[in-house]
Structure formats: C-alpha cells, structure tokens
C-alpha cells in the first residue's frame, strides 16, 4: 500500500477510536463538571460493560446480534446500578470531598477488578461481532462493524447533547454545575442529580465498553487504557468542558490512530502525554478551559 491509502486507513481507524474515546471521556468530564470529583474507577465501568457484553453473549446464545442488543441495553443499566450504589454507599457519605473520592474510587477500582477476576477469570475473551460485513474500498476491505461502532457512538453523543441541552434533567444538571447552592435553593434536587449524573457517566463508559468488545477482547485489566486516554482528553479539553472534551477526543483519537499505524501504539501514548505537558505549560487550564 502506498502512503495515501495507508493514511486513509489510519484516519478511519483514528475516527472510530476517537468516537469511542469521546464517549468514555464525556462520561468522566460530565461527572467532573457537575460533581467536581474525579472517578478513578471510570475505566472499570468501561471494563464492566465489555465483560457484561461477553457474559450476555455467552448466556443468550443463538444469534450474536440478539445477545449484543441485550448487552447494549442491559450492560449500561447494570453498570448504572453499580454506580448508584457507589454513590449511595460511599460518595454521599464522604460528602463528595475531592481527595477522599479519589482514594475511595481507587479502592473501588481494586474491588471491581478483583470481583471480575474471580468470577470471569484472568483470560482475555473474544466476542463475536454481531454483524459481519466488509466495506470494500479500492485499496483494502474494512470491517463494517467498526463503522457501526462509530455510528452508534455518534448517536449516543448526540443523545447526550440533547439530554443536556433540551430536557429538564439537563437543565438541572447545568444549574448544579453553575452554582450548586443556588440550584438547591431554587428547588433542584441536587443529591438526586449527583446520583443520576454519576450513573449516567458510568453508563456512557459501559456503552463504549459494550461497543468495542467485538473489536478488542474483554479482559479484567482493560480499564486502565481508556481511563488514561480519557484523562489526557479531559486535560486538553479543559476539565468539565464538554465541547472541549469532544474536540480533544478527536485530536487525540485521530493522532493516536495515525501514529499507531505508522509507528507504534506505545509511542502514540507517550507522545500524547508529552502533548499534554506542552498544553499545560502554555495554558494550565487546558486548551478550552477557563483561564485561572
């Protein structure tokens, strides 16, 4: 393959990765924006989504499509329930203190990993793609499922945007983000908003996990990479800035795709981190963040 098609392939891979990354990072950014906390276990919610997708696929049997569709709906719901339980049992009790939350979610990370390791095992398990077809370009064939992943992620992103900008729940979320006390005084059920936002952020990560599992295998340690990439994205995009998060996800996802295809995935991650360093030197609040 010459350079042109190679670059096209890299762009395609990068775009698919960017959309999935945007979904995961959006969850993290939303939780930070509204609740001012960082969830270190965010990647584990992604991993739970992937593992549940495998589990539903193996339990339901028959056509992989049915199992996949069930997983796509039930997976995030189960993960959302875990998140609500976390909020109720832990976060609420430490009053969403930023540093205690970090420590508690590190603890949660270990607990989730260990539970998955015990019940699911330490091996990576593959999930069959629910739909199999190839899109043939003049130079190479491309997995049609990856395009479906990209499309589904885009739909979920648009759905999230509608939720935030057009619904009452979204109004509550934005009000809480702007001024928690004032929102409470005006009758916004802030505690419930917190629980729902935390669950919603986790569900976005879980949905991303369900979507990628046919491309990438499910493994109990798979959560760290999306977590770190999401961190890179939210730092560049500005913590809590949703528009910045999406833009940064595309910058990181596509450049990651290109560097991975031409050089190596490890180098891509190292370079992305150095890019963050550069951004922070110029603008400590992130590229799209507010100036301090």
């Amino acid at each position, binding site marked *: 393959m010459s350079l042109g098609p190679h670059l096209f392939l890299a762009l395609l891979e990068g775009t698919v990765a960017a959309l999935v990354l945007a979904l995961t990072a959006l969850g993290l950014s939303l939780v*930070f924006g509204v609740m001012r906390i*960082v969830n*270190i276990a965010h990647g584990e919610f992604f991993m739970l989504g992937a593992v549940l997708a495998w589990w539903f696929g193996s339990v339901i049997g028959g056509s992989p499509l049915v199992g996949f569709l069930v997983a796509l709906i039930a997976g995030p719901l189960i993960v959302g329930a875990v998140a609500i339980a976390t909020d109720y049992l*832990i976060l609420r*009790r*430490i009053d969403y203190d*930023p*540093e*205690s*939350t*970090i*420590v*508690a979610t*590190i*603890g*949660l*990370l*270990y*607990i989730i*990993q*260990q*539970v998955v*390791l*015990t019940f699911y095992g330490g091996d990576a398990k593959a999930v069959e793609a629910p739909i199999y077809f190839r899109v043939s370009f003049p130079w190479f064939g491309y997995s049609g499922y990856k395009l479906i992943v990209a499309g589904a992620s885009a739909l979920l992103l648009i759905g999230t945007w509608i939720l935030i900008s057009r619904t009452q729940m979204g109004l509550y979320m934005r009000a809480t983000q702007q001024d928690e006390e004032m929102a409470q005084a005006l009758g916004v059920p802030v505690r419930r908003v917190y629980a729902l936002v935390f669950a919603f952020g986790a569900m976005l990560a879980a949905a991303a996990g369900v979507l990628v599992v046919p491309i990438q295998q499910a493994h109990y340690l798979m959560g*760290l990479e999306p977590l*770190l990439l999401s*961190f*890179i994205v*939210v*730092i560049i995009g500005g*913590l809590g800035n949703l528009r910045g998060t999406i833009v940064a996800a595309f910058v990181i996802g596509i450049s990651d795709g290109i560097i991975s295809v031409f050089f*190596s995935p*490890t*180098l891509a*991650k*190292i370079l992305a*981190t*150095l890019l*963050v*360093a550069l951004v*922070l*030197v110029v603008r*400590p609040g*992130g590229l799209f963040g507010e100036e301090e």
Partner: protein
Amino acid sequence: MNRRISGKVLALHLGIIVLLLVAQFVLSPYHHTNVARIMVFATFALGYNILLGYTGLLSLGHAMFFASGIYGAGLTVFYFQFGAIEAFATGVLSSLVLGLVFGLIAIRTSGVSFLIVTLMFAQAAFLSILYFNEITLGDQGIVISQVLQPFELWGTEYPFSDPSVKYNAALLLFGVTFIICIALVYSPVGRVLVAIRENEARTRMLGYNTYKYKLVSLVISATLSGAAGAMYALLFSYIGSTFASIQYSIFPLLWTLVGGMGTLIGPVLGTGLMFYLVDISSGLTESHLIVVGVVLVGLVLWFPKGVMGTIREKWLTWLP
C-alpha cells in the same frame, strides 16, 4: 506543635530507629527479610508523605520516581559494573533530576489536574520503559546479583546476599530518611509547606513563593522515593517494569493513609501493617487485591485520619 523539637519527640523517633537496630537480633529469618523490605518501602512512603501529608499535594505518579531510582541504580550496575555506592548515587540523582523536570511542568497545575498529570506522566514513564525494551529489558526484568560487587569498607567485604547486610543497609537508609524528614518538618521550609497545605492562597498573600516551595517539596519527595528504589534494586537485586506500574504509585498512598498522613510515624507504621495484612491475606485467599480495595474504601469512610492521625488527635497531641 512547637517550633523547637521537644525531648519527647526526639526520644520517640530515635527510639524507633534503635528498636529496629536491636530487632534484627531477635527476629526469625522470615520476619528479618520482611522487615528489611518494609524499611525500604517505608522510606518510599516517607518520601511520598512529604508531598501528600506535609504539602497537601496528592500524587498518583510516584512509581516513576521509585522506578527511576531502581533503573538508575540497576542499569548502571548491569551495563557499567558500577559499585554499590556509585549505583546508589546514580539512582538518587536520576530521580532528583526527574523530579525537578517533572515538577517544573506539573506544579503549574493544582488540585485534580495535578493528580491527573502525575498519573499520566507515570504511565508515560512506564510505557517508555517497555518501549525501550532493548535497553531496559523491562519486559522480563533483570537480576543483578550476579554482576553486583560486594560493598567494601575498611578492607572488609559486605556481600548484599547476606541478610544482615541487607537489613542494616535498609536500616541505614531508613534511619537517615527518617531524620531528614524530622529535620524538614521542624525547619522553616517545613512550616511553609504546612501553611501551603492548610491555605495556599493565604500563604501566597503573606509573600511566600508557593510555586518554589511546592517544587522543593516535590523534588525532596521524588529524591527520597528514588533513594528507596535504588536501595531496593541493590538489596533485592531484581529490576523490572512492574515497579513503574500504577500499583507502585498507589501503594505509597495506601501506606501513608493507613498510618496517617501528615504524621512522621504514620507512613512507617502503615507500610508495616499493610505489608503483613497483604502477606497474611494472600496466604488465606488468592484475592489479596480486594483487601487493598476494601481498606482504601474503609479508610475514607470510617478512618480518614489513619492510625497515627487518630492517636495524635485523641491522646498524643504533641506528635509532629
């Protein structure tokens, strides 16, 4: 807390060092090795606590400083046949330089951003060790005991395979670090660091360059962590990329929180407690990770000040 070190404080802390010195003659061989290991890890925790407990900066990237000590010492032994002293110095120096360069970038951020930046850089360091695998052999790790020459002093040779050499080298590092930490906490710099922890804006308003002080704190913390890493490589003779993984960033946080952050004895006690807790639980069940997880969650819910923090609050208010 007073500016002057009281006799009580000095006696208690030096007493711990003396206790550890005497303990080597009574401990069984199994615990003997464990305590040597705990002292090296406690040095790591003490370094970490300078940043978290006394400056209020939460880092999730200290594995890179520990690993730079390990690799600085280990690789020079492996490739250039450095002696123990030179290798140790290289390890300490490399973590000092890393701490300085990293600090210049990372201290610009604060709060959550600082945490995320430390986490990401540590991961980049971890990936770099794997990426330059031909040099670091990070994948499979290196055992350096074949290459490392015994340490020589006044004509006597001290091989590192000898348990009592291990123990006393670890004790020496731990004792020196412990004294450095006491001196730092009581020094004017230490007082400013605590002021930054309590209220950074006010400290800045009083005319202190908080950026500079935080940088100093980070460099000291990184250097002590690196010293622990370098000693670990020399004593236990294994170097590998695991030591740069996120686990080794979480361990010092865990040890410090269990023992009580912002206390001097806390990190030491926390290291010992967690070491034996994991040791005992991994004998009972295979899932010792869950112990770490449950302890972390339990600490923030019911025991946020840790062992020594609670003791200081309730009984011994004179503890530093």
